[in-house]
């Protein structure tokens, strides 16, 4: 994931209609943004639409970016706004608890193979906000302050939820592998 300074420089060039800069941003930040979008929706076609809308919005709005401010948070906030717009259009709740629970149930029935799949399965048991906090840090390398800005929640909450989520993941993973505590 590109750092703030690099993204800021690219946005300055994009503001001058530099499409090569937009391509650089796609290559350097596209994966992180796409992964973030997918943390809100399982429909890949929908997620691809949002991803494209996000980069179009970045191109159109780059002139509005204030140099020296947090460029990474700026582009992810655009992504989040587009997610909200898309989901509202489709009359779906952002939380989608019932649907996510149903999807999670299906996943629980699949065989998990290896640690990676186990971590993935455990991630799905977390609440949506905590899951996004963890994904933004792990996949996009977001600092907690940036995550707070993107998700619109207090920084202290991000620190707490991240720490507790990692503890839960660790404990759940170790608990599943040990098969429960020993008898007295």
């Amino acid at each position, binding site marked *: 994931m590109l750092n703030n300074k690099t993204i800021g420089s690219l946005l300055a060039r994009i503001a001058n209609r530099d499409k090569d800069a937009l391509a650089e941003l796609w290559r350097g930040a596209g994966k992180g943004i796409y992964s973030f979008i997918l943390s809100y929706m399982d429909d890949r076609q929908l997620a*691809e639409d949002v991803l*494209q809308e996000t980069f179009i919005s970045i191109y159109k709005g780059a002139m509005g970016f204030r140099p020296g401010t947090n460029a990474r948070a700026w582009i992810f906030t655009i992504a989040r706004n587009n997610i909200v717009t898309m989901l509202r259009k489709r009359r779906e709740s952002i939380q989608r608890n019932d649907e996510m629970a149903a999807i999670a149930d299906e996943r629980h029935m699949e065989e998990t193979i290896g640690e990676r799949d186990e971590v993935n399965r455990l991630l799905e048991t977390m609440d949506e906000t905590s899951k996004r906090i963890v994904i933004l840090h792990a996949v996009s390398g977001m600092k907690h302050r940036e995550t707070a800005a993107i998700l619109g929640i207090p*920084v202290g909450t991000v620190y707490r939820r991240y720490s507790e989520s990692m503890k839960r993941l*660790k404990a759940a*993973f170790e608990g599943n592998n040990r098969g429960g505590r020993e008898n007295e």
Partner: protein
Amino acid sequence: MNNRKIIEHIKDCRSHVPDERLFQGVLAEIGRYEQTTARKESPRRRFILKPAVLFMIIGLLVFSSLAVTAVVNDDIREYLVSIFGGNPSSVTGERVEATAESGGIVLDMDAVVAEGDSLFMLYKLLDKERNVIKDTASIDSCSVTVDGDSSFSSTRNSIIINGQENYMALQFDQPKKGRRNVTFSIESLRVPDDAATLTVAAGTEALVPDGNPGIIIDSVTLKNNRIRAEFTIRDESAYKMGYDIHVRNTLTGRTFNQKAEETSIDTQGNTKKIVWYSDELDGGAATEYVLVVPIDRIITLESPLEVSFDADFSRKPVKVIKPNGVHVLTAQVDTVKVYQLSIVAEITDKAPADDNKEGSPVRVGSENDIPFYERDPSSEGVHGQRMRIFYEDGEEADMISSSTTTIGNNRYRFYAILYGALDYSRKPVLVIGDASIPLY
């Protein structure tokens, strides 16, 4: 599995590379946009990157941080390592060589760290013949005076392992200054009495254990997938409940530790009421569960074990931070003082005080109340907010204890004792409620 490994797995399974053809679609749409949008020719804007100061989108937070040099004495981290393990940063304190003996038990005071209003003592207790301390014990009654003053607001100490290093941490009501004489005196110890351990079935009511009428088990109930136990303590001169009260599932053997405990004392100070909650259980019927209550026997020493030594209380904080515009609910954080082994935050609430809890004991909840640990923290007011320290990598800095004291009208002190010096390279952040204050 450590955090780094978990992060790697999350990256693997949650990183999705978008199809390159999608970007071609973006370019096509931009092309249409540029063709159909009438654009006025305008001079190109020049963007000047502002150096030095970084502004956050969520608000303007400016911290002034003053690093203060601590007084250097000696590095005493070896004692902390022998208790807590790990690889902590250096901790400067004073080596003490003070010894006392009573009834075959030897007290060695090894080192102290005096900073702000805290005193951290590192000592050993050795029962050579193991007549009293077979393996472990804990202090039942002791006193600590600083130039004759014994008013301190909190203490924390470790379980004593015979012959090994232990700690006791105290916070005094008022900060002390300069070189002071400290006297530490142990009058009685408590040792585990395995034969007296109580195993009580869920559903029990009004149980008075044989030979131990000082402790009454009022009830042990299964509620909301937790065990809730109520105790009445009338007399603790001979026996006390041990620290490791837990629940055991008799079918699976799994054990469940304490989630929370509330204590209150009647107005005469004679009777103590304790309400104890377990962690969440595995479901199932109450008949599957038993409450296990270890019992400690009280041993009064032949004569008090007493040592006296000097300690320098002039140690300055490692950092003094005066945050600007940081609030815990409605209260502004005035100052954060970071010492080696403790941290103090002082907070002023500008809102009318409707939750001034100075001196009020924790009330015992009834079965119909929401257990206090499940209440929304914001409903507890500023006083009820919790103080924690997180590193950027998500690890939480362990605290021996943390407490909140009302120090004046709408003024609060949040205080925490740490297991060791903070690792500033990992960018620790102090979090109180939803407020966060970088400590690096």
